[in-house]
């Protein structure tokens, strides 16, 4: 199996994944844009001025990075979880399984699809945010690297969900009961320094806190968490989830009997 073969197989999975979410853009790209716009209007424009400044920035500017990253997280996750589970449900995943495509390449292809949707939605939400806030980039390298690593991480998590899911309910349970609460409690709307010490320590157990703070640093230059520590946490989760998914694929969990 040469590099050209691997490239073509990888490209095929990515094109298929991008075509899928682009075909149903009304379900994949539009809803997060509308939801985030509502956040901008309600929390930023209506309630924000009454809250005042947060760490030296007006409230709208403070929440914009978190809201963009929230859209990236939920869409990366949802894309891979629903696409992989649908392929499993329709058994079209067998098209790849019977081919010589190695497991790591299947995983890489699906993850790239999730990253593509996450970044696509993140970009559109960023454009919309320009109507509400004057976004300035403090550190472009941090901004781009954090958004890519975060979308990789949550695409991997979505893949694990898709592998383990036995019904469409299982695909929606994790985002509703785990992902959304962790995102909301990850410091999108507030600085964790506002919390009592006990809850500050509890918040440190939330991995999303590290990503939001690192991303906010990319825009505003402020963070509650040490940047290197944030990168370490993100990369560690990526390595762990990548390994778990490879093991699940090798065992054929839910896709081979």
């Amino acid at each position, binding site marked *: 199996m040469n590099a050209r073969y691997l490239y073509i*197989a990888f*490209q095929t999975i990515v094109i298929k994944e991008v075509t899928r979410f682009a075909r149903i853009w009304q379900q994949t790209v539009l809803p997060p844009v509308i939801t985030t716009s509502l956040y901008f209007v309600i929390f930023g424009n209506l309630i924000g001025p009454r809250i005042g400044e947060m760490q030296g920035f007006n409230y709208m500017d403070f929440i914009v990075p978190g809201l963009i990253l929230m859209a990236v997280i939920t869409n990366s996750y949802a894309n891979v979880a629903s696409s992989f589970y649908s392929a499993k449900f*329709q*058994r079209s995943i*067998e*098209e790849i399984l019977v*081919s*010589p495509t190695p497991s790591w390449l299947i995983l890489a292809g699906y993850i790239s699809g999730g990253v593509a949707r996450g970044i696509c939605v993140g970009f559109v939400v960023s454009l919309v945010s320009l109507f509400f806030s004057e976004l300035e980039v403090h550190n472009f390298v941090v901004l781009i690297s954090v958004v890519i690593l975060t979308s990789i991480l949550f695409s991997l998590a979505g893949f694990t969900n898709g592998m383990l899911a036995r019904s469409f309910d299982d695909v929606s349970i994790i985002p509703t009961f785990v992902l959304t609460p962790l995102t909301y409690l990850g410091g999108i709307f507030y600085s964790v320094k506002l919390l009592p010490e006990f809850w500050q320590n509890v918040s440190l157990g939330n991995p999303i806190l590290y990503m939001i703070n690192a991303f906010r640093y990319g825009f505003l230059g402020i963070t509650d968490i040490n940047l290197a520590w944030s990168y370490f946490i993100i990369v560690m989760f990526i390595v762990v989830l990548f390994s778990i998914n490879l093991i699940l694929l090798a065992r054929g969990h839910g896709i081979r*009997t």
Partner: protein
Amino acid sequence: MQLALQIEGLAKTYANGFIALRGIDLSVRDGDFFALLGPNGAGKSTAIGIICSLVNKTRGRMTIYGHDIDIDFSSAKACIGVVPQEFNFSIFETPLQVVLNQAGYYGIDRRLAHKRAEKYLTQLGLWDKRNDQNRMLSGGMKRRLMIARALIHEPRLLILDEPTAGVDIEIRHTMWEFLKKINAEGTTIILTTHYLEEAESLCRNIAIIDHGSLVENTTMKSLLRKLQRETFVLDVDQPLGDLPNDIEGLRRIDETTLEADVSRGDNLTRIFTELGTHGIVVNSMRNKSNRLEQLFIDLVRDGRESRA
């Protein structure tokens, strides 16, 4: 002669304890048209699933054109094309997308993939439907799409798991002709089917599997030679009237129909002669049941009795 497929001691026990395969040995020669038959639940689809890497084997060894599936899985898989029993493509994609994507999974670049897609979709009568959503295709079209998809990387070994199930007679015959053609061009074919006339007319070698064990593995000709008795239905040109009931091997069904049992070593000439002496002319004659069907039933029944 080179072997397309060699299986040694292949066994599968599912997580619920069900034993689907009990250590079967099987060889299929390059260029063969091979039938794998068995009643429902016999283990055929499990065996095919293992060959195609969709089912994890419990034990056993398997090589595809000399490539061990456990050691050199990518070379082994590149040799196989599979048409499964159930539809397993996205209903929201189009036939063209399905075959192009499949080509991509085998590392075939888009330009060549387009050429082959046009070739196989045209040969299978689907080119006009190439941009329709798959959910709009009829059952027969979906089956043909799976054949086109399996052929897109031009495999040396094509495995078809009941490819003509639920397909009308005309399309079934068209598919038979197509399969004969690609076999003649060099593709080895393994076929499972419940239509035994399909196996008899297409296949040169045959294995019968039941309860996870092989009960027969031989050539079609030598299997048919084992047939001890055949029953023919004879249509006569006029009412039988007072034809005697004691002609050996002959039964009256109605006024213009007879059934003749012909044992191995016996022949039909004796019966025709007897009928001729009574002035009865036979207009037409046919097998009461497919010859292979009778053998299949006998072999499966014998196997079950010996196990009991």
